[in-house]
């Protein structure tokens, strides 16, 4: 049980992380007793578990994920949605709220090509394309606010440990922020200026995800922009 690489540092693919009976986390693999990194990322040790938190990479769907997507096709029984994954997602008409049973109306009345929808992954595995649902609170068409698309690999950093980063962002900018696991982030603010600052902060998290003291630096950046966060929050509540 030896940790070879320096924790919290950037590691390259093929770099030796540890030797011995560690638990394998994400993006690590074992050859004999040696554990290597499988991608460019930050090396993390949590007890006996070794993981590499990737610095880059696309979205790979998981059941239960909240994702923002764009409608690319309207069919007879559902929609095809681009959720920035290597697979085309399907949103069947039966997974939209409202009365069940056959509907004669044109599906494009609900969502048309180009619309953004906030949805949840209902089913997905290696053999099947993801299936989405918009049944649930807050899910459905996004018709206002701003949509920011960042790398899906940076989403854990945007949320932060126990949601520290995202709750700080919401508090300081006075915006309501919904984070899709696929890197689509939705921002609703009381003014365009608040939204602009929130969007800028989100891009800053993406760019500097691997640096120390990021939360403080972002708080400072927002403070400098003279956007009032707290008032907006009480108004919203």
């Amino acid at each position, binding site marked *: 049980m030896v940790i070879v690489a320096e924790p919290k540092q950037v590691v*390259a*693919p093929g770099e030796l992380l540890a030797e011995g009976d560690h638990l394998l986390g994400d*993006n690590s693999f074992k050859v004999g007793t040696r554990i290597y990194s499988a991608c*460019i990322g930050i090396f993390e040790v949590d007890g006996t578990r070794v993981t590499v938190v990737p610095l880059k990479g696309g979205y790979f769907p998981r059941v239960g994920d909240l994702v923002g997507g764009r409608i690319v096709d309207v069919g007879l029984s559902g929609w095809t949605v681009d959720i920035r994954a*290597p697979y085309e997602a399907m949103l069947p008409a039966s997974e939209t709220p409202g009365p069940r049973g056959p509907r004669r109306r044109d599906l494009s009345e609900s969502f048309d090509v180009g619309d953004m929808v906030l949805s949840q992954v209902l089913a997905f595995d*290696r053999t099947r394309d993801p299936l989405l649902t918009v049944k649930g609170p807050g899910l459905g068409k996004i018709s206002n606010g701003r949509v920011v698309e960042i790398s899906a690999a940076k989403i854990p950093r945007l949320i932060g440990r126990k949601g520290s980063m995202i709750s700080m962002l919401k508090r300081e900018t006075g915006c309501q922020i919904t984070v899709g696991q696929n890197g689509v982030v939705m921002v609703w603010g009381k003014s365009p200026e608040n939204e602009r600052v929130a969007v800028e902060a989100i891009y800053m998290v993406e760019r*500097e995800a691997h640096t120390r003291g*990021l939360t403080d*630096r972002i708080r400072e950046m927002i403070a400098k922009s003279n956007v009032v966060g707290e008032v907006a929050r009480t108004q919203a509540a």
Partner: protein
Amino acid sequence: MPEPKQPEKLIDDKGIRIDGRRLDQLRPIKLEVGILDKADGSAYIEQGKNKILVGVYGPREAHPKHIALPDRAVLRCRYRMAPFSVDERKNPAPSRREMELSKVIRESLESVVLTDLYPRTTIDVFIEVLQSDGGSRCAGITAASLALADAGIPMRELVAACAVGKIQGHMALDLSDAEDKYGEADLPVAWVPNANLVTLLQMDGILTTNEFEKGLTMALDACKTIHGMQQEALKKKYLVIKEVAEEREETEVVA
């Protein structure tokens, strides 16, 4: 521009080659990562006068759909030389040589990419030779594995590649264009360090068993050096951002 004339001697009396290198010396190498905005991953290599740009896309949906495999991703690779990359204009149509190189480069990368994590998808690698100076397949592999890593694609490790050859009866490392043309043999090698696998081995010309063994040792040593440079180049992109950001914080605290 006419073909470069054959130099009288490829090695002078002191054992120095036409570009001033010793027999066991690499050409200067410059590696850069993430220089294309639209590609998922990219890399640029300069090795001597070689200038090669690599873009990686994926994993993404396989098109046409019938090429998709149910259990893993398909790795597609295209090696291409720009019409202006050589002395005489190169016909832009894909040549026999380019198709062969695309295939051998793909095969040398396939063994390290963890394709089984992304079933039914493709990973596309585009290798564009902007300026060619011998050994471009090796430089292409070096840059392509960097671009794959830059795209965040899970892989076992980086692949490093380098050629050796025989000029005027001596084994020489990393042949340049003239040495390749007027030398006696060329032996490109791609190497995967941790697994200790050779994933590309071609030979053009004739070598004795002893020469071959000596050449392979030289090439593997050079691959080791290149592998170190690759890791450094890959991390540099993030370390620069980190330094700038953390320094900014420090100056702000002081102010």
